[in-house]
């Protein structure tokens, strides 16, 4: 290949303009290749496909098609080489402009592109000290045990006035100013009697009623109630109580242990719970440590962020918000109305967070590079395997579906490996209580 000369001009901390000169030979050889390809599909009477002379082809189809096809080949190629030549790390697609040849100057490509900023890494090892692992207390184990018991509780009808915590079977008709409203009516509904499950006043009104009794219960919709027409209204519910049921917890014994988890005994179950709680606590601590490290890193490093990356991040956050609204069954415009924001305002709101994320990503990637952390084929295979399990598809299929996105998958692996590495460094640093150089 012919050497091509290109020059870089810095437009800003994260933006450069490349000027790439294309040699005439390079263009004409590319044109020849483009013509060969095109002539295979050209149909001109008197000539077999692919046997058409270039002169006739140009007469029939014009020269511009050959030229533009050739450029499609040459330009990205030249761009890639220029990027390599100057050791640039672009973070998005370039904006390219072709300057035609004139006055003996060869054809030039002007490419504007955002590049990764140069990051001078400060100290990033042992930035945070892990908190002392907390032993799991007996109370915590007891609490989980009780929660387990609640899941397997049975309801037993009792003959006594209802109290908070009981389950009740009720009919009720609610009305505001004597007019029944939508959704304010139920028959034979079994529900737990607890204050925070209903609008204020409702549960309190029912407590103390015995089965068979009827009563008018006064309740007050809170001002921020989700249905606007009901918010801040006083309502009267005509309630009939049919049955009071008490929650009966199963005895916590070996049998219970067997039913819940297949453990041998209560002791084994408790052990099991303790282990699980400890694991949860560990991963929580690890995450907290990661967050701490990240915060420190963000604090101690300052560099210009490529706007293109930040904008992309904002877009993806908007996309998340949009799909969130979609899942809630709210239209995008309604959602915006409900949070009293325009899309532009929302964008502005997202910006600081987006900047933080981009900065974090760049930092982590820079550290990964400095520490020579790579995604090994085994890592990729493992990641594919876990994706495969997630989607219930063979991993080959996933690999195919990903296509070129495997590269970004690998980036992700490198990032999480780097993060793990940072956390480990902190843990090691704390263990030896000496700064790691």
């Amino acid at each position, binding site marked *: 290949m012919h050497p091509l000369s290109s020059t870089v001009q810095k437009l800003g901390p994260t933006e450069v303009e490349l000027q790439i000169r294309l040699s005439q030979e390079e263009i004409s050889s590319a044109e020849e290749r483009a013509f060969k390809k095109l002539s295979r599909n050209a149909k001109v009477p*008197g000539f077999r496909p692919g046997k058409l002379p270039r002169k006739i082809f140009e007469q029939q189809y014009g020269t511009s098609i050959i030229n533009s096809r050739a450029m499609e080949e040459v330009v990205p190629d030249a761009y890639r080489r220029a990027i390599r030549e100057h050791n640039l790390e672009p973070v998005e697609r370039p904006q390219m402009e072709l300057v035609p040849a004139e006055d003996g100057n060869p054809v030039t490509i002007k490419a504007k592109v955002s590049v990764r900023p140069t990051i001078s890494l400060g100290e990033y090892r042992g930035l945070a000290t892990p908190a002392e692992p907390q032993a799991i207390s007996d109370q915590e184990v007891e609490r989980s045990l009780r929660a387990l018991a609640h899941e397997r509780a049975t309801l037993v009808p009792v003959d006594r006035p209802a109290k908070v915590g009981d389950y009740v079977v009720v009919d009720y008709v609610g009305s505001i100013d004597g007019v029944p409203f939508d959704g304010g009516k139920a028959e034979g509904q079994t529900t737990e009697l607890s204050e925070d499950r209903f609008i204020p006043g409702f549960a309190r009104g029912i407590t103390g009623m015995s089965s068979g009794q009827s009563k008018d219960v006064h309740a007050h919709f809170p001002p921020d109630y989700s249905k606007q027409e009901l918010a801040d209204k006083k309502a009267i519910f005509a309630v009939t109580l049919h049955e009071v049921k008490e929650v009966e917890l199963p005895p916590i014994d070996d049998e219970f242990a067997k039913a819940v988890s297949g453990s041998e005994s209560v002791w084994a179950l408790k052990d099991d719970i303790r282990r699980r709680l400890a694991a949860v606590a560990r991963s929580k601590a690890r995450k907290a440590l990661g967050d701490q490290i990240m915060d420190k890193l963000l604090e101690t490093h300052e560099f210009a962020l490529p706007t293109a990356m930040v904008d992309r991040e904002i877009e993806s956050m908007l996309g998340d918000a949009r799909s969130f609204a979609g899942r809630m069954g709210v239209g995008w415009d309604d959602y915006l109305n409900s949070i009293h924001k325009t899309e532009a305002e929302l964008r502005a709101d997202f910006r600081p967070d987006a900047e933080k994320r981009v900065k974090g990503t760049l930092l982590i990637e820079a550290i990964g590079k400095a520490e020579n952390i790579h995604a090994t084929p085994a890592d990729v295979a493992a990641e594919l395997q876990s994706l495969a399990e997630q989607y219930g598809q063979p991993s080959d299929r996933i690999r195919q579906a990903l296509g070129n996105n495997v590269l970004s998958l690998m980036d992700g692996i490198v990032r999480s490996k780097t993060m793990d590495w940072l956390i480990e460094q902190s843990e090691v640093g704390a263990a030896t209580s000496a700064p790691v150089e």
Partner: protein
Amino acid sequence: MDARDVIISPRITEKAMAGALTQQYSFVVHPHATKTQIRHAIEEIFKVNVIKINTVNVGGKKRNFARSAKRTSGKQSDWKKAIVTLKAGQKIELGGVNYFEQ
């Protein structure tokens, strides 16, 4: 007959272009044109010296048309091809473009 009525068009095909390498240029000519007429016409139009002329009458191909219910058949026009050999060193160009050269 006028020269431009004798010579109908140049033949621009792979085969005709191959002939251009040996000074032989191929044309579609009027079916009734004689070799003498063709010689005069070529020399008049292109200002070249013709050494030899071969002609051949080409029969039009039969074509069948099977269009809804009615089946008809027809025939493409017969035509005459003339292969003109020029004096060494001379060539024929059309509108500045030498169609016969690769």
